[in-house]
């Protein structure tokens, strides 16, 4: 019996060894070299499915536009682009696996970033290991830039910087508000926004008299905000996603609390905000990094307005700033390729050069100026503030790009 077992073990091992050796002969990577293959992993299902699909659309708009002109123009020849993408199911480990697949299995020439900080964290660690530059327009958590990575870039500013415009807007108010309350949901992006508020309040002469992070699952916003109301701050700054912003506005009305300024880190820029709140959405201020009326202009898409029109014609909806940032990421990578005269297939040393070029670049695009700091975040991009005015999202700050002056103070609920 024992002999049989040993014999079995050996036979099994041999068959396996033969199978394994035959595997090495498998042909791989024999791909046409006359185009740029650009890969990305992004959430198409799961909790970030909707937002991730927006990022995919943003990359596809760019690819269609570039291919419509025959491809990327490098040294007098045009090379079309092909997008290779997968659904990371909103899961970090899947995102990392897919980026590895894109690099080692699909052998893409270049990468673009996905959506959501956790996913991008995992994915960019793989990109860093293989020295593939990864520019994203869908993740802005500060920690992404604090790892000392050389190959990760973002066209968005850091989450804490994004809300600067929302606090600076008090400069346009007379008399100047003196006190602020900061509340926000305790998840990565929104809590970083709250940190940003806290950072920019003192330089604007605001004293923070209340600071509170609450669980995202909080249902009773009224009690939380009554606490704030009792302290009577001049300004209410909210670290929010869309649902948090909507719930806050509803609760403010119910408890009849009207600070002189109510600002959100995210939410009012999404059309659903006005759709759900109707007239009650008026006067809400929100952070944004881009709006279609900004006076920006650059290669590929032309002006911000032209980009907006192209996008709206194609998908039947106006792009939000995350989509603009994602398209801009693709544009910036394209410009770097053209500057260096890199043609497909892109080699390892080309990608190292590309990374170095990205740090050197300072370009104007439809999305605004893009210049990457030493940590990979976009440092040239000014945070803007929008306000809901007559049901429209209007750019109100800073003054040099504003469509209309901000309507402040926030009108008391009883006088509306």
């Amino acid at each position, binding site marked *: 019996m024992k002999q049989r077992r040993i014999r079995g*073990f050996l036979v099994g091992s041999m068959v396996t060894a033969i199978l394994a050796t035959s595997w090495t002969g498998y042909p791989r990577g024999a791909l046409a070299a006359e185009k740029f293959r650009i890969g990305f992993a992004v959430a198409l299902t799961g909790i970030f499915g909707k937002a991730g699909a927006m990022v995919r659309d943003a990359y596809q708009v760019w690819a269609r536009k570039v291919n419509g002109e025959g491809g990327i123009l490098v040294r007098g020849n045009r090379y079309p682009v092909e997008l290779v993408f997968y659904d990371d199911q909103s899961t*970090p480990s899947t995102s990392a696996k897919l980026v590895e697949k894109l690099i080692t*299995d699909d052998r893409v020439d270049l990468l673009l970033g996905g959506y959501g900080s956790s996913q991008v964290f995992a994915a960019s660690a793989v990109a860093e*290991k293989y020295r593939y530059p990864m520019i994203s327009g869908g993740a802005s958590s500060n920690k992404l830039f604090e790892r000392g990575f050389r190959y990760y870039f973002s066209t968005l500013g850091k989450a804490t910087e994004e809300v600067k415009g929302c606090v600076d807007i008090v400069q346009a108010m007379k008399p100047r508000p003196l006190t602020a309350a900061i509340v926000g949901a305790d998840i*990565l992006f929104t809590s970083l926004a709250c940190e940003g508020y806290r950072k920019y309040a003192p330089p604007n002469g605001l004293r923070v008299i209340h600071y509170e992070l609450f*669980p995202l699952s909080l249902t009773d916003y009224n009690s939380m905000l009554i606490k704030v109301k009792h302290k009577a701050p001049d300004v209410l700054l909210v670290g929010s996603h869309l649902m948090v912003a909507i719930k806050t506005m509803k609760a403010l009305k119910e408890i009849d609390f009207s600070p002189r300024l109510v600002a959100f880190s995210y939410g009012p820029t999404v059309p659903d905000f006005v759709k759900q709140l109707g007239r009650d959405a008026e006067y809400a201020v929100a952070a944004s990094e881009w709006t279609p009326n900004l006076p920006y202009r650059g290669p590929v898409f032309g002006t911000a307005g032209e980009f907006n029109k192209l996008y709206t014609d194609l998908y039947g909806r106006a792009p939000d700033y995350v989509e603009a940032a994602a398209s801009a990421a693709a544009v910036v990578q394209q410009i770097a390729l053209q500057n260096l005269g890199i043609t497909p297939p892109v080699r390892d040393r080309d990608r190292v050069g590309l990374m170095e070029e990205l740090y050197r670049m300072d370009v104007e695009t439809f999305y605004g100026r893009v210049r990457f700091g030493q940590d990979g975040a976009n440092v040239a991009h000014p945070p803007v503030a929008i306000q809901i005015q007559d049901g429209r999202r209007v750019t109100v700050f800073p003054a040099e790009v504003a469509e209309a002056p901000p309507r402040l103070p926030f009108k008391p609920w009883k006088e509306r």
Partner: protein
Amino acid sequence: MSKGIAMGRIDWRLHALSGAALLFLALLPRFWGSGYALRLLTLVFMWIALSGCWNLMSGYTGYIDFGPVAYFGIGCYTTAILMTRCGIPFCASIPMSALAAASIALPIGAATLRLRGAYFAIATFAFAEAMKQILLEMDRLLGIDSFGGSHGITLPLGPTNLFFYYSMFAAALATMGVTLWVEYSKFGYALRAIRQAEDTAEITGINTRAIKIRAYGTSAFLLGGIGGIYAYWITYITPQDVFSVHITVHMVIMTLLGGMGTLFGPVVGAFFLTIVEETLWARFIYAYMVLIGAIILAIVMFMPQGIMGTLKSLSRHARS
């Protein structure tokens, strides 16, 4: 043909197959260099190890544990904190993570294992959710800056894929090894007795509570170690990610598919589900969840004992 010889034959084939599989997997990276393939297999090993842990406790005792992810998450956090805040190297962090998970599991097990059926399931589920909240709030409660709250913890960029391939391979082997021991030991016999008739087992003199706590603790010990490897592998962890109920659900489904309370059940289940998911998602991005659901439903309906259980009863059928 006598039963003894038939059993001997099965044994013989099984040994040959396991030997071949082990050798194949150990040598595979030498022949197959693709980073993606390695990562995929690393993931398969991780699921084999995780569902193996669940099988160890729930498969053998019949106590449905809905909170194993708690110990996985504790392992993730222990390694992350030891490596980033205390400067302890990875290799030393892993056993400490395993111990941390086990030392929390013992009192929790002592309390929850008095409960049976749905009550035990709900208690363990609640514990895992509570752990998630505790880690989110810990820093604020204690006024420290160690756990990172919702910001999570970033780990240093790890070594090569090969390192994690062999680490997860070792984790899967360790889980299998413990399961093998359970399968043939008196301890395992006691666990099965608990599953079949706990009260009777108690009357015959088995200290069922001590046995259950031991199984629970062993499972948590292994889960803690696997969590530690995962944290270093993925480089970034948050409470939402590593205490996610989806991880528990995957462990349960994989074990159910493969066969509860069998040695190879979790292996077959983890391998099957990971590969099927991998094959389907690329082609049917939006429909694959439905397809996976249908496959799981079909297996549960037509093979209530899982793939291994069905194979076993088929071979028994063929012999008789």
